């Protein structure tokens, strides 16, 4: 009894001390990072640019931020990346507000919702923050520039071309997309439908499913598609998470080599599936270049070289000169097709 009592008391004290330490460490870690960043205001001659992707921990945005950081280093600005863990607009709003409070020169955003973050972005602009959207746009009146990775028509076209070539222009296909309300994905899908109807009468699009840019969800949706449509000839996934999950499922299933998978993917994610024959060809722009161009555009805005008006031109480092098109859109270029012949030339 005595012994039991004492251990219990000691246990309670240890637990209390441990919890106090946890609370304290929680507070002090905020303090540490706060003081660490206190000095990083406007160092260097270039602009301070904060990248705000749809969410963090997404390899696609890791790559675009890498490009952005490289560009910021080149022009001597301050780079920062912030973002929510979940790709939701309300979480993005609090990060936009934060950037406004910090008084950064420019904010590079991939929008989770074209409207929901508008007020926050305009408030940032009222406080002299230049706003550049990339990858996924907002309404045009909420930002100064949109850096378009490739125009929707080009992306829809290359995906329809790839899938119809791979299945012999005949049979059932399905689309595995990201979130049901992802602005860019839906625009591409609509254009793909138009193109299929107009020029590929023997190809039937049976269903569009949504993997929410989640690996497991996309994997499961692929399995469900193959079960529901035994005659399925191909899957188009216009999202890097989706195509990799679909390829991973197919690579170990009986349908390997029977069902074509194509869409938009990154070389590093797709390399093994191209090598083992699951995937013939897929396409993408270079997200690193997208981030790079975005940062240079932001810097040009901050420096006052451009205002975002149609016809404005600016230099984007290694990428050369770019011109602002209608509605403040800057086009990165045409999509690029990756296949067994060229995939080893890329590393992202």
């Amino acid at each position, binding site marked *: 009894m005595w012994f039991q009592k004492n251990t219990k008391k000691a246990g309670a004290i240890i637990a209390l001390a441990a919890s106090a330490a946890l*609370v304290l460490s929680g507070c002090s870690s*905020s303090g540490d*990072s706060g003081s660490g*960043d206190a000095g990083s205001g406007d160092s260097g001659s270039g602009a301070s640019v904060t990248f705000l992707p749809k969410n963090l921990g997404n390899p696609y945005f890791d790559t675009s931020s890498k490009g952005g950081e490289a560009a910021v280093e080149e022009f001597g600005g301050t780079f920062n990346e912030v973002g929510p*863990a979940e790709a*939701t607009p309300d979480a993005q709003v609090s990060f936009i507000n934060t950037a406004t409070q910090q008084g950064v020169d420019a904010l590079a955003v991939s929008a989770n919702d074209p*409207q*929901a973050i508008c007020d926050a972005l305009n408030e940032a602009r009222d406080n002299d923050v230049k706003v550049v959207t990339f990858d996924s746009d907002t309404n045009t009146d909420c930002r100064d520039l949109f850096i378009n990775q490739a125009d929707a028509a080009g992306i829809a076209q290359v995906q329809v071309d790839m899938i119809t070539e791979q299945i012999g222009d005949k049979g059932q296909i399905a689309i595995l997309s990201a979130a*049901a*309300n992802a602005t860019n994905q839906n625009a591409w899908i609509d254009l793909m439908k138009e193109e299929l109807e107009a020029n590929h009468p023997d190809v039937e699009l049976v269903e569009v499913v949504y993997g929410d840019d989640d690996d497991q969800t996309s994997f499961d949706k692929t399995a469900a598609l193959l079960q529901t449509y035994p005659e399925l000839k191909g899957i188009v996934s216009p999202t890097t998470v989706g195509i990799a999950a679909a390829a991973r499922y197919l690579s170990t299933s009986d349908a390997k080599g029977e069902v074509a998978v194509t869409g938009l993917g990154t070389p590093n994610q797709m390399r093994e599936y191209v090598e083992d024959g699951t995937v013939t060809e897929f396409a993408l722009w270079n997200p690193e270049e997208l981030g790079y161009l975005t940062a240079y555009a932001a810097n040009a805005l901050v420096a006052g070289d451009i205002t975002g008006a149609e016809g404005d031109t600016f230099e984007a480092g290694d990428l050369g000169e770019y011109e602002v098109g209608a509605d403040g859109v800057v086009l990165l270029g045409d999509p690029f097709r990756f296949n067994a012949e060229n995939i080893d030339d890329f590393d992202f």
Partner: protein
Amino acid sequence: MSATTTSTRTTGLRPIAEYDRPLWQRLLLTRETAIIALFVIVVVAAAVIVPNFGSKITMTYLLLDMFPVLIIALPMTAIIVTGEIDLSVASVVGLSSVLTGVLTQAGVPFGLTIVLAIIAGVLCGAVNGFLVTVVGLPSLAVTIGTLALYRGLAVGLLGTTAVTDFPAFWTDLAKEKIGSTGIPVVVILFIVLLAAFAILLHFTRFGRGVFAIGLSPEAARFSGVDVGRTKLILFVLSGAVAALGGIYYTLRYGSARGDNATGMEMQVIAAVLLGGVSIFGGRGALHGVVAGVLLIGVLGSALRLANVTSDVINIITGVLLIAAVVSSSVLAAIRSRRKSTRKPRLVGTGPGNA
């Protein structure tokens, strides 16, 4: 051994045992005081350490962001005090947001839209309450189900689209500040709701019934509390307030979407528990809950301003929550130990009973 440690909870005599201490000690030892103190410390520390934190705009953003969590935490507190839980609140936010969008799109006057969206929230809450009190299912199971059901309805109604066109008067009102104070106008609505719930929970017979149910539903029933009716009312209130949160959410972001406020139920429940409400029921107070919500909000805001990534913010919030819950049970264990060593009581029917 185990009989003495479990006796405090089952008898519900803990508050009485505390009166042998001076008032200041009792105040210092409450969870609410501790959490309010922690809140003040974090605010002061953040204002000193984190650049750009100590400004009026920080408070404005914070209150705008936390408003739905603040109001939904009020009925949630009462529900958790009875020993139940409502996990469907964020889905009700999403559903009422979508309804607000659909009705506005259909040309319904906005005043009527608000009424209809709140009625929908009341119905959602009534379904939860019916299943818990009349059918007798556990609220955890019921509201996990309706979490999926209401979210499904919300996403189903609007599909992949979002409604973004709302009357400017209302969207402006959702973000309007009181004069030059920087305090959002919606805070008035929160204070009204807080006052109403504080009176209901802490100063009425109904409220005493809520706490009695949490301590012991059987004892509450024997002393004349209508357990079923009380719980049903609380679930309905929860639905109604969640719907109000959904309308606000829609107006603030100018976007009605099926996936609005996904995961918000966890923010609400975390804040309520941090605020000192016992997950086992029977214990809690609204001032602690308000401090809990604001503490999580301030912490997130300060860490974001310090450029801490959101996964680290989640880790810190999680650790804080666990620490708060652990420290409360440790304190309770110490209290019961002291009490049992001071004057052993005869509780239970004998050794081996527990």
